[in-house]
């Protein structure tokens, strides 16, 4: 008579609807790899505004949000399209024009801030940063080692995103999220955020998770809701399911105006719902 955890599967549009204007979002993956891009596109379709993006290495996601005018602020480590596509043009323009506010981090200081939130502590010391102008830029405090090592260390304040949103390889009905290959920064993001949303390549039966529970990056009880969106990381990669769709990224980059309708309509989740 043991009751199961509840079913958390919703549609992509229902998942996006959980996110309100002005929310701060930690997005999983890195550059063009295993990002929750279908969800980002759906937020744009729904006209979300005033978002903050938190990510060590955003690229396509932040560029898209800037191009759509959906972003107000970002805390980011390194921003680029990568894979020979260079800088993220719409992001660059948004920062240079003052359209969005940038809090520039090193990747590891984003992680430190997420760790402070994940560990429930008021700050996280971060190694390195000696001589960098970033701490002063951000008003970070340093501290002398009270144990006498004479090593000063920078203290990074907590970063607790409203949502962490990751693209997983597979989920269970109750929300267990399996990730294959590198987890990028997804682990610490899901521990630091107030709520976790998952987009997944596929739904697998509970038995599959019971056979290899070690592959579950996020246990179901930490997950708010899940949408199953095959090819949801398009035009990026989701190993081992698919690689980067280079022609699609080239087409995205080649477009010079802010109208995203063609790109959004070309996305796998749009074509599926058009067919449905």
């Amino acid at each position: 008579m043991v009751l199961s955890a509840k079913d958390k599967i919703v549609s992509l549009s229902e998942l996006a609807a959980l996110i309100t204007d002005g929310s701060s979002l930690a997005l999983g993956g890195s550059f063009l790899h295993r990002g929750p891009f279908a969800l980002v596109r759906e937020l744009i379709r729904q006209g979300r505004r005033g978002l903050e993006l938190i990510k060590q290495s955003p690229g396509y996601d932040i560029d898209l949000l800037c191009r759509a005018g959906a972003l107000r602020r970002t805390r980011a480590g390194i921003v680029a399209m990568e894979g020979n596509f260079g800088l993220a043009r719409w992001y660059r323009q948004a920062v240079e024009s003052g359209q969005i506010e940038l809090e520039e981090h090193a990747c590891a200081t984003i992680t430190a801030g997420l760790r402070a939130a994940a560990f429930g502590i008021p700050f996280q010391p971060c190694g390195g940063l000696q001589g960098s102008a970033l701490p002063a830029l951000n008003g970070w405090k340093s501290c002398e080692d009270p144990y006498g090592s004479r090593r000063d260390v920078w203290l990074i304040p907590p970063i607790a995103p409203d949502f962490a949103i990751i693209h997983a390889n597979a989920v269970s009905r109750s929300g267990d999220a399996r990730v294959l290959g590198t987890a990028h920064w997804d682990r610490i993001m899901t521990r630091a955020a107030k709520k976790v949303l998952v987009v997944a390549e596929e739904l697998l039966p509970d038995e599959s998770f019971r056979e290899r529970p070690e592959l579950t990056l996020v246990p179901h009880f930490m997950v708010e809701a899940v949408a199953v969106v095959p090819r949801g990381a398009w035009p990026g990669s989701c190993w081992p399911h698919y690689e980067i769709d280079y022609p699609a990224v080239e087409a995205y980059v080649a477009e010079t105006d802010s109208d995203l309708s063609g790109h959004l309509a070309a996305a796998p989740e749009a074509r599926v719902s058009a067919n449905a």
Partner: protein
Amino acid sequence: MPEERWSGFSYIVTNLARFIRPNEVTFSGVNSNLPMMACLLAKDAYDFYFTYINVAGGVDPHPTKVPISSSDPMLAAGTQSIFSNEDFYDLCTRGGMDLCFLGAAQIDGEGQTNVSVIGDWHAPKVRLPGGGGGAVMLPTARRSCTWRTEHSPRVLVEQLDFVTASGGMHGLVTPIAVFVKRDGRLVLQSWHPEKTLDEVIARTGFPIDGKGATPTPPPTAREQAALAALDLAGAFEEAAHVTLD
């Protein structure tokens, strides 16, 4: 176990289980057979879902038998994820742990605990297991509960020999009484119906008055059946050595 009567063992396990609430994240750790059984009992006996995580990395496990060690990998059998030690501690310190079962050697009236030492720390009469989870989990879990298989002034004390963990227990179960925290103090909620209020007060080392306390409601049929199923051979009850005196 005669129907609708408590043994000391069933009293502790069942009343610990009664602290578990719907949809909460509930944790049992090492050296914690009775809370482990309480969590398994609650899964079976109550009509609500809760998340049971444990020190073996299990999340809502499906053990094929009840292990003797409460950190046994059997408690991760059938789990759909492995939630390792660092992970559940971090969950607790960031405020995501709803109910934590934590052991104690001595408990005072504020619900502080000593698991370190009997006597002076630097010249111990008895060296106890030590710090464990309490010092970090007791102040950071939303609620914590503890249990003792002995109810006496030497375990429920006015003054701890050492304050290992502070922050205050939400609940305490002994073989003869259930305490809950009210206004920062452990107060008697109910007592074993075969005992008297006076006896409970006399055997409690910290001051209580028993106002508002009642005899503990008897085990329900489902609680009894669930516990019987967990301890078919009675081995856990025997090993726990719980007496009412």
